[in-house]
């Protein structure tokens, strides 16, 4: 990654290409909060930051990261902020204000959208943020473009004194491709002292300056090297592609054999659109198909451009149903849409297997403390006179809304919202709502956005219980450090923050429980549910994945099949069916419970739940 070998060809993931691009741009500052699919970027930057003499941090949340990058820009530093679609929305105020006051040092935001929501709760389209905030946006197609666009975006940002967004999508982040390396600068970008009369202030009259920048950018994008056209000179049918759409389009055109009649216009400059460039390519075209990820943003804008020039063109894409309105593009749905556009026959597809795949829900890992937490929580809530109201939040534990967590919660909004939704219900218990109110958050989410909500709920003494599922990790995105871990993105050891003390510091009661101590924790939760006012319970047990990494030889947990009563037990396969840990399976030959030794990590909770005491635990060894 840090080799200064211009011209060398490397196989890179899109996320790696961003890192390399940032190094070639000589960034001074990078900040991010982990969010799939671009979580790896800052992790890699943190590892090389010292060597390349820049600062990198895992910020407490995306707004911290975004605003820190804006701050760095004031000292003429080149700053890079990496977020996912939700992160960009979370920092929306910062970028809207930032766009209005502009930047000094180059500032680039990498946002990764997640079409098909592989690792998200949504498929929000980041392009609206660029349009809304008047920020230029680029979208690469290949890994090479991804790398090259970063230094280009910094130069553009400095030339126009405006931040630049690069939009990635999951397939670009995680896909691999060849990248020809560029030169690494000797030193990072030259910073400058903040001058007495330097200004980056958001005031309303800067709006016109901001709009002038957009005009400038529109001109600039008319001749941008990231906009391409391939195909015949005057096609009747034109495909306009953004991002991955270009690659799918190329493949489908080849498959359908329509390369001699269909044009493919690929746009790397997503906002503002190069209107004259587009108009030139629309000349004489009768039908346009737009290939883009998520919403028909490009499609609608093309319609507007064509409409304002009285062009008679039929548009198709995500809006008219030629492509699905939800989910990502793929070679098949794109080929089908192009077949529809051109009338070319769809080549027959070889089907690998007729066997349907078994449908499986996402679930917690074997040994995950969350499984125990939600098992206990469900039991405790069933013990209450009325069903409780449980509000979820964002993290691995969002899976608790499914079988893995006994369908734990009734509502889950955005990250950090749980405490606030619950606060409202907690207040309503003073007005006749006779229900116990519970919300959950992870340790990383706690610092991310729960804190202000906790201050609010504590100050207003809501009747509720916040369970902080402290697994000592930002587990969902890949174990990035957070303020309670005692380590930073650059590998520095720092004093970890104690969540219990933080909670107590704002004057709220906080207790700690171990989700693996099933009986005791059941009592604790029951007691706290019946304690009026704001209560916090920290469920402390490290993430199972972390634990397996640390253990030399884990505890051995197995079923003594002589003691398991099989179908004769009243438990109806409690371990594998209800507890549901992937380690607990059923031995259909002997009709007894079985623990898969490969999957089991030795948490031993199932041994505590087995009504026949048939599950045995043998001591392991700490590394």
């Amino acid at each position, binding site marked *: 990654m840090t080799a200064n070998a211009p011209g060398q060809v490397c196989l890179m993931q899109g996320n790696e290409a961003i890192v390399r691009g940032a190094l070639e741009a000589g960034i001074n500052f990078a900040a991010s909060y982990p969010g799939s699919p671009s979580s790896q970027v800052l992790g890699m930057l943190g590892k090389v930051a010292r060597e390349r003499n820049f600062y990198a941090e895992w910020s407490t949340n995306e707004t911290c990261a975004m605003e820190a990058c804006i701050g760095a820009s004031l000292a003429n530093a080149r700053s890079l902020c990496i977020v996912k679609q939700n992160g960009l929305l979370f920092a929306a105020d910062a970028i809207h204000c930032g766009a209005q006051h502009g930047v000094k040092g180059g500032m680039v935001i990498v946002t990764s959208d997640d079409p098909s929501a592989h690792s998200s709760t949504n498929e929000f389209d980041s392009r609206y943020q660029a349009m809304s905030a008047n920020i230029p946006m680029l979208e690469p197609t290949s890994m090479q473009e991804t790398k090259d666009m970063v230094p280009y975006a910094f130069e553009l940002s400095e030339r126009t004194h405006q931040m630049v967004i690069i939009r990635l999508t999951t397939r670009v982040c995680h896909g691999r491709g060849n990248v020809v390396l560029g030169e690494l600068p000797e030193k990072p970008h030259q910073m400058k002292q903040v001058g007495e009369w330097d200004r980056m202030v958001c005031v309303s009259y800067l709006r016109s300056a901001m709009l002038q920048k957009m005009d400038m950018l529109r001109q600039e994008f008319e001749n941008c090297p990231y906009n391409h056209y391939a195909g015949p000179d005057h096609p009747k049918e034109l495909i306009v592609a953004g991002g991955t759409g270009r690659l799918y389009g190329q493949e489908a055109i080849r498959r359908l054999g329509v390369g001699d009649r269909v044009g493919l216009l690929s746009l790397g400059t997503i906002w503002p659109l190069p209107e004259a460039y587009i108009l030139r390519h629309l000349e004489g075209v009768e039908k346009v198909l737009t290939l883009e990820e998520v919403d028909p943003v490009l499609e609608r804008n093309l319609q507007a451009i064509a409409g304002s020039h009285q062009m008679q063109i039929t548009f198709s894409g995500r809006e008219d149903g030629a492509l699905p309105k939800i989910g990502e593009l793929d070679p098949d749905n794109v080929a089908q849409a192009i077949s529809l556009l051109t009338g070319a026959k769809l080549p027959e597809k070889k089907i690998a297997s007729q066997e349907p795949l078994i449908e499986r829900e996402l679930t917690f890992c074997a040994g995950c403390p969350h499984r125990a937490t939600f098992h206990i929580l469900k039991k405790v809530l069933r013990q209450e006179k009325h069903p409780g109201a449980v509000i979820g939040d964002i993290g691995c534990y969002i899976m608790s809304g499914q079988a893995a967590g006994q369908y734990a919660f009734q509502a889950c909004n955005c990250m950090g919202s749980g405490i606030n939704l619950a606060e409202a219900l907690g207040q309503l218990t003073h007005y006749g709502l006779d229900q116990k109110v519970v919300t959950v958050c992870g340790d990383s989410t706690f610092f991310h956005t729960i804190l202000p909500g906790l201050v609010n709920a504590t100050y207003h003494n809501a009747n509720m219980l916040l369970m902080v599922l402290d697994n000592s990790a930002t587990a969902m995105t890949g174990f990035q450090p957070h303020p309670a871990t005692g380590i930073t993105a650059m590998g520095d050891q720092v004093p970890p923050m104690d969540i219990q003390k933080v909670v107590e510091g704002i004057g709220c009661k906080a207790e700690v429980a171990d989700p693996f101590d099933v009986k005791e924790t059941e009592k604790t939760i029951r007691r706290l549910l019946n304690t009026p006012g704001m209560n916090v319970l920290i469920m402390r047990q490290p993430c199972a994945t972390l634990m397996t990494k640390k253990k030399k030889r884990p505890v051995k947990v197995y079923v003594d099949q002589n003691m398991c009563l099989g179908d*004769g037990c*009243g438990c109806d396969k*409690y371990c594998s*069916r*209800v507890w549901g840990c992937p380690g607990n399976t059923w031995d259909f030959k002997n009709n007894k419970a079985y623990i898969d030794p490969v999957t089991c990590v030795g948490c031993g909770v199932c041994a505590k739940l087995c009504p026949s005491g048939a599950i045995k635990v043998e001591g392991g060894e700490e590394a």
Partner: protein
Amino acid sequence: MLSTIALDTQVIKPGLCTGCGACQGMCPYWDSVEGRTLCYFDCERKSGRCQSFCPRMPMDLDALRKKFFPEDTIIPEIGPFRGLYLTRAADPAIRAKAQHGGTMTALVELAIQEGFIDAAVMTRSQGGLEPEGVLATTAEEVRACSGSSFQVPPTLAVLNKALKEDRYHSIGVVGTPCKTLAVYKMKSKPLAENDNHADNIGMVFGLFCGWGLDWEGIRDLTARHADPEKVSHMDIPPSKYHSLELRENGETVSVNLDEVTPLVRSGCRYCTDMTAEFADLSVGGARSADGWDVDKGWNQVIVRSEKGMQLLELAREKGILEFKDTPETGLDKLKGASMGKKRTGVKNLRQLTGSEDDLGYLNPSAELFKDL
């Protein structure tokens, strides 16, 4: 239908559950908190023991009693009958803590000592609040269960656990009518493939019962009138007193019954059994037509089976119980009271189902109630 769903939709949601605990103690699914029966997770069995033991699931009661009692001993009003007696414990120490005459405590103690049973599932009333089911094996443990509670603990969960463990092979059960009915359902082994060691059930001792009360309701009510910690006894004197009596530090505190009746457990409103008709013998407080004080401190005992008769005669022989002549009107009075409860239960069931012809869980036994 899955068993857990069947019980939830046919018994718990309509408010029929008695809280007896017959569905509990055999699996990780059913539990009880403060008299409320609850299900933690769904079980996928279609024919579970939980629903086949439940006293509020439909069952032909006439067929069930004919299975265990000779037909010629059955009296329509009060079930199997071999004799009615007025008794009390001879030991004044038992009487001092007893609800009425201490007959039940003395009989169960004797039954263990004489090997009629090797353990007894009983309810420790703890002065009337926060009672719990226990498995008693010694005289001390039996005596600790003296006195009644109007809160209803899931005592049969203790029985189910004890049966499952298979450690005792002749377990006596002391319970209210809903509980003893459930025990006879267990004895009838409705699920051939898993009877939960029903043969380990020894004798069944029934307690007369008018109704139980809502757990929280009676707790709050008690707290309004006395210090719950200091209450050692609760009783309902004959109806003309229209009161609930709390004994606080030896003093009697009288609570107007109007405060109590709204707290009657929903499930008790649909009960048609006052005298615990499914039992070897049934014990209740004596109620003389000549006034409360005449028989105060005495029990009336209905002997229903041969075994019950053997135990009672042994108690007479050994001087464990004192006997008093039963007034001639005693049996008629008892029959009248029993029929009164049957009429109310059937009326309430008709109201619940909304149909004169639909008696809900009593439908398979409709013949027994056709004249009510």
